[in-house]
């Protein structure tokens, strides 16, 4: 080989080597956690596995939440020798059925809504929950929750994971104290309070249902909360299962009661505009006028805690004596049954194996719930959960509500309805309703969009 040819080779090889070295610098080689430096007493029941088996989990949880999720099973991995690989993508809900059909679904799926779960279970993609998981769920969860992991054929497939409570009403404690307002104990009292605040010269409510192509969903939460409280859990169940039509009088009543607030120009939209501004305001910004007292109350789920921010970027304290706090939307009658709507994930397996069973039982245990909640930001309806571990006052309150035996818990109705309604015509219906269509027209249109079969 001549020198010239050598040169021709040397340059690309050198370039490749430099590239390789540079790329190596980008990677972080993290030393794996070993069993020696972990207290494994809590994990003895799951056994130890030889040969480092891997279990893949898929879900919609991303970013910080995903990091915390992975951290929540770090000790479990070290003690059992199982490697858990989590992949989070926003497209999970759209893709999972396709993946399952092609036989390439992850071992375990964290399914964010019962409607999707039922679809997967009915299609025969899911594996029934192992005995250990069912025992855990019987022990730590209420019958309501177990019901959501049970398919229409009566087989129990999925354990609940985390939970959230909807139907909070955010307010400014300082303003309520100054003006002498009391936290209402019934829906009627809340309307009286609304009228009183309006009479005192403040716009009582601020709301926003804008959310990109999901615009409308915060409005469905309002309606669901009212159906559950006014018509009761039984009617609510019938409604989401379509055993009563969507244009049933009970639903019309709920819509109209919400309309008494949201469609009354005197009561909305504090600091944001008129009724039509509800649609154009992003749900994340809709509560912010509470901070400068240009609006008194804002209805949104517990997760809204993370959305509070002052205009100058400073922190907002969320506490009973802080800048903002929340009370749960009251029952229809004072002292009546406490009913809440909420959300949560269901964990089910697409494949079978001892290591998958071990991961599933760990995720359904009180140990996991405590580990995860301690990391902050979320709660679970697991009754073995120590409420004091929750990272904020509002989350502690939510845990207590979820663990209370007298609480009637119902999943967010739009998650339970078929996609054509729950994630399409119900949202569009809310938008049209707030744009001025009357209730009967809107509920009739949603009813006619309910898929036949």
């Amino acid at each position, binding site marked *: 080989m001549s020198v010239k040819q050598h040169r021709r080779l040397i340059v690309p090889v050198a370039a490749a080597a430099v590239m*390789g070295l540079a*790329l*190596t610098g*980008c*990677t*972080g*080689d*993290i030393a794996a956690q070993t069993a020696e430096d972990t207290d494994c007493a809590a994990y003895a029941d799951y056994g130890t596995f030889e040969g480092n088996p891997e279990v893949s989990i898929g879900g919609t949880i991303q970013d910080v939440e995903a990091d915390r999720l992975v951290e929540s099973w770090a000790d479990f991995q070290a003690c059992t020798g199982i490697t858990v690989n989590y992949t989070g993508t926003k497209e999970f809900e*759209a893709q999972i059925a396709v993946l399952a059909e092609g036989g390439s679904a992850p071992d375990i799926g964290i399914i964010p809504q019962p409607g999707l779960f039922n*679809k997967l279970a*009915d*299609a025969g993609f899911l594996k029934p929950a192992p005995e250990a998981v069912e025992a855990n769920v019987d022990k730590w969860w209420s019958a309501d929750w177990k019901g959501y992991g049970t398919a229409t054929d009566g087989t129990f497939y999925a354990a609940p994971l985390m939970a959230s409570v909807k139907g909070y009403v955010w307010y400014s404690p300082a303003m309520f104290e100054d003006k002498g307002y009391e936290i209402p104990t019934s829906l009627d009292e809340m309307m009286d309070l609304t009228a009183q605040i309006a009479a005192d010269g403040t716009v009582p409510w601020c709301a926003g249902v804008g959310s*990109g*192509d*999901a*615009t*409308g969903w915060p409005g469905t939460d309002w309606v669901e909360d009212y159906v559950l409280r006014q018509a009761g859990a039984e009617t609510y169940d019938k409604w989401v299962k379509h055993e009563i039509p969507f244009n049933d009088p009970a639903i019309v009543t709920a819509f109209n009661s919400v309309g008494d607030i949201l469609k009354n120009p005197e009561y909305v939209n504090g600091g*944001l*505009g*008129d009724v*039509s*501004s509800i*649609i*154009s305001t992003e749900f994340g910004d809709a509560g912010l006028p509470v901070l400068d007292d240009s609006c008194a109350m804002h209805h949104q789920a517990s997760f809204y805690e993370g959305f509070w921010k002052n205009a100058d970027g400073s922190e907002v304290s969320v506490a009973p004596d802080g800048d903002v706090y929340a009370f749960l939307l009251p029952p229809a009658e004072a002292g009546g049954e406490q009913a809440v709507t909420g959300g949560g994930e269901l964990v089910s397996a697409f494949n079978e194996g001892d290591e998958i069973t071990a991961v599933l039982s760990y995720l359904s245990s009180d140990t996991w719930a405590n580990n995860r909640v301690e990391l902050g930001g979320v709660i679970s309806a697991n009754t073995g959960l120590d409420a004091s571990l929750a990272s904020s006052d509002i989350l502690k309150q939510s845990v207590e509500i979820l663990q209370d035996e007298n609480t009637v818990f119902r999943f967010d109705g739009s998650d339970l309805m*078929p*996609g*054509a309604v729950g*994630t*399409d*015509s119900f949202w*569009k219906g809310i*938008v049209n309703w707030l*744009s001025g269509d009357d209730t009967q027209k809107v509920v009739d*249109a949603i009813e*006619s*969009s309910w*898929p*036949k*079969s």
Partner: protein
Amino acid sequence: MTTADLLGKIIQVVAALAAFSLVIGLVLFLIDKAPKRGRDYWQLAFFLLPALILLAVGLIYPAFRTSLLAFSNSSGEWVGAENFIWMFTQPAALVTLGNTVIWVVVVPILSTTIGLAYAMFIDKSRGEKYFKALVFMPMAISFVGAGIIWRFVYDYKSGDNAQIGLLNQILVWFGGEPVQWLQTSPINTFLLIVVMIWIQTGFAMVICSAAIKGVPTEQIEAAQLDGTNPWQRFTNVTLPGIRGSLVVVITTISIATLKVFDIVRTMTAGNFNTSVIANEMYTQAFRAGEQGRGAALAIVLFLLVLPIVIYNVRVLRQQREIR
């Protein structure tokens, strides 16, 4: 990502490249060894085969499956023409079809007219290059980007707040009340159409400008000597001379308009009576989980595009015959 992962990925890439060249090499080798008789046909078959396989997998099979899906419900059961009945009876779905018609009529006509007029006016002017670049620039912006830009233009803040939307700010300067542009039907559909015209005019202008320059000067001079005025020259000499290009422009823009999705989705997500077929197709198939309805909409879209494509091909073919 660890070093091992990275190395694994590099090895995968190298392996894939190697496999690719191996297959190509094998194909070439086999063609070379093909029997002498009918070697041309063998070669033809071998070279076409990869493309045909890809077409079958990527186009023919999906088209076939979509057609089947259009006649089934979300759980895959056969429901006959129910999805099509839904499409032509549901008020919301009818609005979608109506909007698509408005789009496909207004956008090609307006963008071609504006583009052609602009091309005529700036033809042979000083600084033609810069005038062209100005109008052509929006073509370089993605539909989603354009949608976001224009959503800001139409943005609404209630009366006492400072406006951040240009259109409402202009209204306020002239003493008007701000308007919820994107929520007011039917004007919102036309405001979305403006965005599409803004993008497509550049395309029409460039093609028309090139075609105008292709019209022989002899013909124009001859017409001039016959005592025609500029308008007559335009309608009787230039227009017939650029007919082919005009058809290409109009059909291309029509097809792009029928498929419009990004603008509607980013600006209104199909709310407030602005939805079009492509947006509804996505919403039904992927958000609502009603693949059947989505597939039915896709088929209608395909049937609507088909005549335009056929017309386009026919005109091109006629022209080739003339030449």
